[in-house]
């Protein structure tokens, strides 16, 4: 049996307002609320809402036989609360059908996994807690920002309680292998890896509305035919898409919603089912290990992280941002913590891409960089204000290390103290005993010593007096 595993990504960053360098130190609000409201409501009404309604209809029409998974970033959740709460209600309804699995991902949709495992864990935990509070679920599957994945994060994901991870079916990793199987992570065999079928995903994401594509127009019938034509033993077709693909990237009038809605009918005709990532991880037997030394992602032909960290501007901004991570975690200022999360969104770095600039609210990557760095300069100042400025980063790190280790240290010191006390007590007891013995044995010797000392002092004084008189 073959099954399609759908995952739909929903993310919206908090875009920055135009922040001039003379605002540094004066203006501490960085975000363009009007732009964000405009974009979020537009995309929600063009895409998210009709797409969710379509999914809901698909589930109802097929009486629960259709299922899929959705990932929503924390930043998107927050903006929906402000601007389009009706979308959250739709997500609630989708959850109640029991056919939609919600997948965890970093709260900020940022790149913390690449440099700061502590921040990464906190980010995942923050989204997990939203899912827990809203839907009462404990996510078992995780999807990192833009499907970024590499061996180093696998053990951490297992530790955080995840059974599976979604990533890109990067050509240079797979080689002759097919993405249409379940793999296990080489560095943490407990973790299952689901890899995106790049071709079949991009047929929808990139090529659906492309009239110059030889296979245009793409119909549900044709698409399911392609899936049915994959080798018999390939059991899972991972189609991971941004939700905006439906209605925003490809407008509703291209017929993309109808395409989506028609998929189950044709799939069932050919004996193809739908599956959620959790089910896939539980049911399908992994065929082998997959090892990924360098981070892969869904971006571009290279499938690496160069879309966000490909030039010196991006790297500079990224390094400067994460240099603050430790201090931000230690402080208790909520506004500062919030801004740190918003600034981590990978979109900010994507806007600085000079090689293949994609969609950006900025005119040029240089404007994006300038604006971001100005904001960061103000942010750094605020972080510094939380800590005495004379403490350097290294000093702070050593202090933090001391604080972190202090529990253990206090314990060892306590032990030492206790043992010392014991020995001192013993010593005292012995000493008292010995003194008693000594006092009995040598009472005569002590007396002459005491008498000698004052005599010397007197002699010294008289000598000094003599010298004075000679002068």
């Amino acid at each position, binding site marked *: 049996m073959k099954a399609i595993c759908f995952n739909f990504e929903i993310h919206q960053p908090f875009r920055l307002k135009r922040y001039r360098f003379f605002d540094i130190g004066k203006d501490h609000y960085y975000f363009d609320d009007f732009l964000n409201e405009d974009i979020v409501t537009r995309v929600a009404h063009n895409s998210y809402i009709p797409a969710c309604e379509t999914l809901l209809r698909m589930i109802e029409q097929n009486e629960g036989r259709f299922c899929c998974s959705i990932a929503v970033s924390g930043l998107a959740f927050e903006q929906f609360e402000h601007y389009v709460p009706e979308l959250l209600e739709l997500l609630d309804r989708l959850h109640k059908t029991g056919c939609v699995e919600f997948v965890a991902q970093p709260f900020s949709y940022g790149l913390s996994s690449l440099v700061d495992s502590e921040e990464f864990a906190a980010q995942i935990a923050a989204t997990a807690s939203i899912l827990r509070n809203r839907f009462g679920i404990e996510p078992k599957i995780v999807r990192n920002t833009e499907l970024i994945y590499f061996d180093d994060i696998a053990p951490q994901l297992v530790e955080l309680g995840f059974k599976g991870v979604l990533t890109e079916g990067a050509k240079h990793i797979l080689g002759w292998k097919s993405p249409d199987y379940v793999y296990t992570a080489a560095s943490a065999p407990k973790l299952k890896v689901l890899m995106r079928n790049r071709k079949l995903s991009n047929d929808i994401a990139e090529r659906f509305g492309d009239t110059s594509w030889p296979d245009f127009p793409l119909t549900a019938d044709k698409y399911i035919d392609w899936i049915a034509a994959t080798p018999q033993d390939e059991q899972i077709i991972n189609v991971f898409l941004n939700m905006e693909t439906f209605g925003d990237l490809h407008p509703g009038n291209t017929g993309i919603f109808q395409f989506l809605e028609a998929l189950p009918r044709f799939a069932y005709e050919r004996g193809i089912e739908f599956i959620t990532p959790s089910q896939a991880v539980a049911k399908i037997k992994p065929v082998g290990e997959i090892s990924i030394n360098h981070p892969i992602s869904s971006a571009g032909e290279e499938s690496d992280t160069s879309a966000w960290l490909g030039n010196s*501007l991006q790297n500079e901004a990224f390094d400067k941002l994460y240099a603050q991570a430790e201090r931000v975690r230690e402080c208790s200022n909520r506004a500062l913590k919030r801004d740190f999360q918003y600034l981590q969104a990978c979109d900010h770095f994507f806007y600085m891409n000079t090689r293949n600039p994609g969609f950006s609210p900025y005119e040029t990557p240089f404007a994006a960089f300038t604006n971001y760095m100005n904001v960061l300069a103000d942010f750094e100042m605020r972080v510094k204000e939380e800590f005495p400025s004379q403490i350097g980063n290294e000093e702070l790190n050593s202090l933090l290390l001391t604080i972190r280790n202090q529990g253990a240290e206090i314990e060892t010191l306590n032990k030492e103290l206790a043992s010392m006390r014991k020995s001192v007590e013993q010593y005292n007891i012995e000493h008292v005993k010995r003194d008693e013995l000594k006092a009995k044995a040598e009472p005569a010797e002590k007396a002459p010593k005491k008498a000698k000392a004052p005599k010397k002092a007197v002699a010294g004084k008289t000598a000094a007096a003599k010298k004075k008189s000679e002068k």
Partner: protein
Amino acid sequence: MKALMFGWEFPPHILGGLGTASYGLTRGMWECGDMDITFVIPKPYGDEDRSFAHIIGNSQVPVAWRDVDRDYVDARIGKLMPPDLYFRLRDHIYADFNYMRTNDLGCIEFSGKYPSNLLEEINNYSITAGVIARTLDFDIIHSHDWLTYPAGIHAKQVTGKPLVIHVHATEYDRSRGKPNPTVYGIERDGMIHADHIITVSNLTRQTVIDHYGVDPAKVTTVHNAVVPLSPELLNVENLRQTKEKIVTFLGRITMQKGPEYFVEAAAKVLRNCSNVRFVMAGSGDMMDKMIQLAAERGISDRFHFPGFQKGKQVYEMLKASDVYIMPSVSEPFGISPLEAMQMGVPSIISKQSGCAEILTNVIKTDYWDIDAMADAIHAIITYPALYKQLREDGLKEVAQITWDKAGRKVIDIYNKVLGR
């Protein structure tokens, strides 16, 4: 193909971008091969590079017959013009210009600059052009900028050869929209008579179409380019004495170049940054006003006016700079940011300049947006990554903007005009 070009400036004796562009284009066309170019300028000095074009000076063209012998001519103007050519030209004097002030060789004197009697000099240029056009054999006439349009028209009328005019600037750019009617008249006359018009940017093309009422089909944009710098210029000594950052404006201090926006932006930057100095190099009719403005803003201690820079000094100035800025209100092309990029200096240019159409590794702002300009200056001097990125990618980018590509486009236009 033989082309007769009329120009006003030619390196090394140049006053503005016109000479640099004329030189680069001629050389670029020559590199494309099969081009025989004669370049006419008012007053050659003898040290021009003649390897790729014949240079004829109007000041050596006889307009009145003088009975001189060959040795005398050779002694007088031999280093500027072969005596044979002088005698050939003398044979083609077409009217009696003895009423004009001519010298011992029957030639009119030219300043080759932009003197107060510029219109008279333009007229004289046209008179001598008539002699040249009657003497030489060529396929096409190419006039650079309005000063030489009358000459081009004259040559076209006496030979019937097609005329291409090259618009390096228009009176609308120079006067911020309040054109001198005489100049406007000369320009429009040239455009009407031209068989084809080449503009240095789409911005200029639009001006030509909108303000001069020219048929858009007759106007083509050929963007300017730059000649690769010699190692000598690339490695000029860095004269910088201070650790402070230096932001440089280089050019004529005139209304067209928007110098006041630079002063205002500098004042904004200095309000928040202290480790930076500003330099406005060049001269022009707005210089005194700018000195006063800087004083009014209280930034004179950090805003410097070193005056007009020429030759190597320009590159020394660039070498010592961290940022180059060109806030032109209306710049048909603007070659100087490209030169700054060649020297590895990140540039800020106004969106109202023609070169903004072809450059990506620069920061573009509106000329009036002093906030954006100040922000860009601050960003380049404060964030090393931005400086590095603009510098390195700028060098790569500008290396691709070469004159042979522009030359090829001009040759294609010639072929089209000639119906080949």
